[in-house]
């Protein structure tokens, strides 16, 4: 049996990683909740954002945490434009078309990155990459702690946006009843694009928080998207609280199974949960009845 502080360290690692997973899942669940589509380009967008952080750091010498304030609006704008001018017009209002368009987008983005950056795995080296915060017997990685706190902050801001602002009200209205919202004067296309933009902005923040301790290659997004899908299913489709709690659970499960079953088998726990949730609670922990 492993000692308690080892278990606690792995638990803390899991919670910190899980918070970033939650952030990736937030974007996915938001887009699903409003547009009722699965955005297959989610992983590729995350990869693009991570490469953006990499370029910002290695070419323009911008610290990844500072890059949050540049890349978040940039990716919001990109997401908005892609939904408004590509996905929207190309789908002709048919959900299955949207699926195909986002799938096509993911292939284009991934291969553009592959052409531009080749298949090399890259990482950035920041001076605080390995600094720690001591909590009793635990040495917690500072960048992971920052990512943990920032993810909660973003989730809180997103919740405030949805609950307290007019845009948030409009997003919720469109999610509930598209035609009704349009009849009461809400620009549905605009709201769709805003939602998509918010999803992309979440990814930009996640990318900035990840890069100090993570690597990037043109296929890295896929690893996150599988985890994000599991989180969304676990937490309940379209639920922000669900994404947050689901992310933390998955992070802890991954970390602990990595510790007990070894690095190569670490992900097995995630997919066991995925299957169990689908079998016994298909609507997820916080999902509404389908």
């Amino acid at each position, binding site marked *: 049996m492993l000692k308690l502080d080892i278990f606690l360290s792995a638990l803390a*690692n899991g919670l910190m990683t899980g918070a970033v997973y939650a952030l990736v899942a937030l974007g996915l669940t938001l887009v699903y909740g409003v547009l009722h589509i699965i955005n297959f380009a989610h992983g590729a967008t995350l990869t693009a954002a991570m490469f953006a952080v990499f370029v910002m750091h290695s070419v323009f010498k911008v610290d990844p945490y500072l890059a949050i304030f540049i890349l978040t609006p940039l990716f919001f704008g990109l997401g908005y434009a892609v939904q408004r001018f590509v996905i929207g017009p190309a789908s002709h209002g048919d959900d299955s078309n949207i699926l195909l368009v986002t799938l096509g987008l993911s292939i284009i983005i991934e291969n553009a990155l592959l052409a531009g950056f*080749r*298949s*090399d*795995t890259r990482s950035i080296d920041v001076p605080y990459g390995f600094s720690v915060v001591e909590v009793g017997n635990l040495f917690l990685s500072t960048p992971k702690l920052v990512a943990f706190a920032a993810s909660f902050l973003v989730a809180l801001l997103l919740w405030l946006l949805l609950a307290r602002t007019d845009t948030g009200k409009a997003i919720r209205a469109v999610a509930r009843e598209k035609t009704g919202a349009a009849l009461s004067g809400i620009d549905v296309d605009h709201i769709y694009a805003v939602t998509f933009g918010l999803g992309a902005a979440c990814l930009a923040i996640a990318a900035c928080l990840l890069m100090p301790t993570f690597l990037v290659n043109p296929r890295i997004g896929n690893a996150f998207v599988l985890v994000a899908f599991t989180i969304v299913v676990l937490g309940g489709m379209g639920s922000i609280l669900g994404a947050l709690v689901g992310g933390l659970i998955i992070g802890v499960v991954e970390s602990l199974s990595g*510790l007990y079953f*070894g690095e190569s088998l670490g992900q097995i726990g995630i997919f066991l949960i995925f299957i169990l949730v689908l079998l016994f609670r298909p609507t997820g922990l916080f999902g509404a009845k389908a």
Partner: protein
Amino acid sequence: MTTLNRRTILQGAAATGALIAAPSLVRAQAPAIKVGILQPVTGALAQDGEYGRLGAEIALNEINAAGGIKSMGGARLQMVFGDARSNPEGGTAEVERMQAEGVAAIVGGFASPIVLAASQAASRYDIPYICDVGVSDQIVGRGLKNTFRFGPGFGNVTSTALENLVKLNDAAGKPAKTVVIVHEDGLFGSGMAKLLQTQLPPRGFEILETIAHPTPSRDMSNVALRIRALNPDLVIPSSYYAEFVLLARTMQQQRIRPKGVYAILNGAASNFRFVKEFSDAANLVMDCNHWADPRKPKTAQVKALAEQGGRFWLYNTPLNYSCVRLLADALEKAGSADRAKLTEAITNSTFADHIMPYGPTKFVNGQNQGAAPVNTQVQNGDIKVIFPTEFADAKAVFPAV
């Protein structure tokens, strides 16, 4: 006003004659000999490939500056470079291209899977292939007549490493009893782990656990935590550069200090980049690996050339330098770039002017018999030789804590 006289005309004629004759002078020089240099310079192994290429370049420049291959009328060596892209398919594709360009021989490959595939592809055209680093015993165990390995193989390195580990431990009063093996889960790391699992217990070491990790991996927290929980006397890592650096830094972050970190064929522990960039994490790490002979004056010259432009001194450079020099010597002896004659000349080679601690080359079934690894230890920002004692320039610091 100038008048044309006989002398001016003669001078003009001579000059014109010289001009016309000049191209034929160039033509009279022996045609260049194409040498294939194969290294992974993109992908996960790009760093190693770059330093291998550097060594080959230094050797080629040196040979050409000294007048080329004299037995072939001063023929110059021309590099045909191929990027193996860190995988076997990339390696074989480049061998095909080198064949199309008509190379006399191929040097390099770096990783065992690349060397295995590339040397096999080269054997179909009877191109002599000199392996620089790849240690897999299969490389020279397949009966390929074209394949030679200048450096030591896996079996040789590991038995030397174990012998020296026992010596080290005995000399310190046997402080190390328990071991954790950390290895990458590919051909190289898994093979090493399997061997260590059978070889360490008879030598009095208890293996607490064997931890595998994928390449590339960017998080070593769980590996480090397991080590912390098991609290072994000795950690034996077999990983490539990035993963070992990550492990060493995570161990430092988590304040894990075993009595020794004893690497075998590790990508980082005998790499000056690691030592310079993360000197605290690297300090006192030991390695059994390829290393240039510090006694030979030529070593310092090549090192100085390699370090120009802020580059680091890695074993890839002296190994590739020596392999290219070995090839040039064989060309000199063969007096021909004919592949069969060249293969014959390498087989019978007794080349001694290299910078590895090996003695004259002697190939048996493609393996250089004198090849041997060296034990090094990182000590205060420098890499010191601790074994063999004949040319060790420092005493091992063990146990480290």
